[in-house]
Every structure is written in C-alpha cells, then in structure tokens.
C-alpha cells in the first residue's frame, strides 16, 4: 500500500493546508466528472481497485488507426481526488497519441510521489492535483486513474474498441 520511498523522499514538498487539496477546479471535476458514465463489462479495458478504501475505476479506451485516443470513458466509485483525477486525465487523453499518454502516466506518478518536480506540462487543470503531494495517503487516489490508463492503452493496442455491446 504505502511505498516507503514515498514517505522518506528527501526534500519533498512541505505540508500545505488541506484547503489546497479541495480547490474549486478539483471539486468541479468531482461534481461534474468529464467522460464519466456506466460502462458495459465488455468494453472495460482496465479495472483498478484500492482495497484500502474500496475505490474503483473502470476504463474504456478506443484507439484511432493513427494510435491516438479516439474515445475514453470511465466509471467506478471514488473520492473527490480520484474522481477529479480521472476526469482531468480523460479530458486530456482524448485525441492524444497512446505512447505520449503512457509516458505522461509514468511522469504523473513520479510527480505525485515527489520524485520529480510538479509541472502541469500542458495538461489542463492538472495543477489542481499538485496539493496531493503533501498528503502521501492520498497519492494513490490521484494516481489510480493513470495506472488504469497505462493498462488500458496497452490492451487497446491489441484489442479494437468494441463500443457498447
């Protein structure tokens, strides 16, 4: 559950106020998640769960012939952080090349673990998740959607998106 390296990271960010965590941008993604809807089991390409809090995300991804994301949707249950993160992630992913997204997912996880500095890097609203780095227990909430993305992209390259079945 808790990667020791995450806790012991030297020179990690100093604690910020929890207020930073629940910014309006983040709460808006939580209240009105983009690309959210009930998925049929057949279209789910990745299914991530955190047994610690029961949070779950299921992800459907369809790639265009040029390897960009043609469609992406998620369902599941989660806290504000994980829901907002999934919303921000899916909003960004649409239309982007799979390889670029896969790299971004790795970079995002490293940023959240404070292994590399935080950069928005052109991802809209990503800054809303910067505060999470100060709360190691919530890092997993933020990264879950991005883990699912990596998994789903790998699978999508093999299996064409079937649409609602």
């Amino acid at each position, binding site marked *: 559950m808790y990667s020791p390296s995450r806790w012991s990271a030297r020179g990690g960010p100093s604690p910020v*106020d*929890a*207020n930073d*965590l*629940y910014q309006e941008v983040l*709460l*808006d993604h*939580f*209240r009105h998640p983009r690309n959210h809807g009930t998925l049929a089991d057949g279209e789910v390409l990745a299914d991530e769960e955190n*047994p*610690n*809090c*029961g*949070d779950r995300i299921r992800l459907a991804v369809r790639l265009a012939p040029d390897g960009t994301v043609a469609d992406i949707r998620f369902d599941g*249950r*989660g*806290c*504000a*952080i994980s829901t907002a993160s999934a919303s921000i992630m899916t909003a960004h992913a649409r239309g982007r090349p799979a390889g670029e997204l896969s790299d971004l997912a790795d970079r995002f996880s490293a940023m959240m673990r404070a292994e590399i500095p935080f950069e928005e890097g052109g991802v809209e609203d990503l800054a809303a998740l910067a505060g999470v780095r100060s*709360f190691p227990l*919530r890092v997993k*909430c933020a990264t879950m959607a991005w883990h699912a993305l990596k998994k789903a992209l790998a699978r999508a390259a093999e299996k064409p998106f079937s649409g609602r079945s």
Partner: protein
Amino acid sequence: MGTHRENADAQAAGAAAGAVREPDWERVRGDFPVLHRLVRGRPLVYFDNAATTQKPAIVIRTECEYYGTCTANVHRAIHFMAEEATRRYEAVRAAAARFVDAPGAASTVVTRGTTEAINLVARGWAIPRLKPGDRILVTGMEHHSNLVPWQMAARATGAELRSIPVDDAGELDLRRLPELLGNRTRLLALTHVSNVLGTVNPVRQLADAAHAAGAAVLVDAAQSVAHMPVSMAALGADFLAFSGHKMCGPTGVGFLCARPERLEEMEPVFGGGEMIARVEETESTWAEIPHRFEAGTPNIAGVIGMGAAFEVFSELGMDAVQRRDAMLTRVALEQLAAVPGLRIVGAAPDRIGVVAFALEDAHPHDVAQLLDRDGIAIRAGHMCAQPLLRRFGHAALNRASLAFYNRPEEFDVLAESLVRARRALAGGRE
C-alpha cells in the same frame, strides 16, 4: 472535583446514583501534552482513540526515567541497573495480570501488541493441535488481527473457519450458535468490543457455550480495556489479548494473558535468547512459561512506561471511566444523529464510544481530510474490518472514537465540521 457539566451527567448516568465522586476530568485531560496542541491552527480534537490513544505525561516520563537512570537489559545480568530494570519490568507484567483480572503474572506474556498476542496463540497453540475437520469459530465483526491469524491457522491445518453472523443492529446473531459451534470447534476467538460498531459482545454467554462444546476461548480485548472494567475470569476466557497503546500506554507493548494450563500447552513460536533453558548444538529445551514465549530483548522501556498507564487507569477507577464513556457516547450519538445525511452504522444498546458512520455523497477519505483542516482527527477507511464493512455494504466508513479525556463540547465541533464538509463536497449539487 465533579463540578463540570459532564460530571453531573455522568453521575446521573452512573448505575449507583448515590454519592459517586467522579475524577476531575478537566484536570485529568490537562495531563495529556498533545491535547494542548494546535493542528492546522485549530485546537486539536482527537477522535481517533480506537486507533491509538494519547499518552499522559507520567507515561512519557516513566519511560524516559528508565532510559535516564537504569538502562540495562532485563533478566540476565547481575548488576544494579539490570536488577532495577528487571524489577520494574516484571512489576508491569504483574500489573497487567491484575488489571484484567487474569490468573497471574506467571501466565502473562509480554508482546508487541494485541496482534502479536493473537498470532502467538494461532501459531503456538492452534496450529500444533488442530486437525482437518476441526473448527475455529470467529465472529463477523473481528478486526483483521483476530481473523487473518485464524485464516492462516485453518489453511495450515485443514481446519475449518466459521463465523458468527452480525445482525443489522451490529450485534451477534446467536440463533445458529449451537450449529456453528457443533462438536468439532476447538477455539472460539472473538472480540470483546467491536472496533467499528462499538458493540459490546456477550462474551460470557458465548464462552460458556464454547466451553460446553469443548472449545477454548480467546478474547480480543483491544477495544474494551480503556473503556470498561475487564475481568478475564468473569468473561470466562482462556486467552485474553490487549495492547498498551490503546490505553494510554507506549507503543510496542501488549499482553497475552492465559490460563496457565493453556499456556503450558502452547509451543514457542520464536526461538532465541531468554526463552531457552539448555541449548545444545542441534536442539534445545525451553524456559518456564511465560518466558518461553519472549525470545530476544523485549521493549523494556515501553513495558516500564506501561506500568504508569495501568496506574493512571487504576487511580481513575474503571467504573468512573465507564461512566464517563457512557456520558460521552450519549452526546456523540445525539450530535452525530443530528448531522443531515449522516447515517450511524451499528445500533447495539450495549456499546462504547466508537461510532462508525457514513455521510451521504461524501467519500470517507474526503470527509476525514476536510475535518482535518478543522483540527479534527477521525478515521476513514476499512478500519481493519473489511468483512464487517462489506456486511453493511461499505468499502470504507468514517469513525469517531472517544476516550475519557474528550470533552462533550468537542462533539459540537465535530458535528459542525461534518456539516461543512458535506456542503463543500456537494457544492452546487446540494
């Protein structure tokens, strides 16, 4: 003494409505250094007592005193400080046995905590004697620490693991008990008090039934020791496990109290220094109980500090602590029930001040995080009781758990903060 509103309340709640003299709870509270601190600029409101309690200054001081005056290893050495350390260490073993009315120091094992105590029984007593077809009976409200060790024991021996179900009120459903016990149950392992629902289980009734069916009884007293008088004899337990850190003591200290004949049946789990009599090249004989189960250098400072925690509780009196708990629990339930959209999980009439709840449309992790910015510490998650939470249809819950040093007013702060948290998360949707 007895001038505060809560004391008046507590006296009314007390069984003997006569001239009960209550401790001065404000003064008692004053002895806990952490309770004076600010968290995120707000006075700390600590409601995570079921996870671990705060420590009074005397406990911290007692531990320091060992380090500052007689740091030495115990049992083995002939020199002044070692004798002093051993004397203090062994006095705490005896105090532990007295505190829970156990058979005695000679059958009380010092452990790191409840978890180790239970695992010692699982590995040292259950695994060597259970056979395929034997049964271990637990309940549907066990902490993982009183469930996973029995899963391991069942898997290692081919024994069967069964569970007494929990009803909608959060009490044990005993209707199928005779059938569940059957005639092959060798051990009933159950919690005295649920760490989620606060339910106090009818341990004696269950222990009598288990004994009649030929089973031994292990009681997980982790959640009860800080809230009510606990008597191993009255509960009818063969084994009783509890942790120091949940009753104002240091971390890394716990006890396994046992009936001596059960402890004699138990095999050592860990080998090493202290637990042996004679060591040959390829085999060894064991020391007497309880030392046989204490391989290696123990948490000497912690154990000695624990002595002060036992004294704190003894001086308060467990009856007074129980009355205080009852009063605070009543306030907690009232205040929480009044929060819009909040549903309390667990409605047992016989309960302590451990209150699990769900806030509508608000994830428990977000709730805890938002309360934290008001300086309030509550728990969020599966509370180390995943099967119980699933039974009530949850993957995670929030929990507020109190200790005698909490103030009734703190529940006002809690309730207000919960209302604000829900509003913050719901936003326009509300």
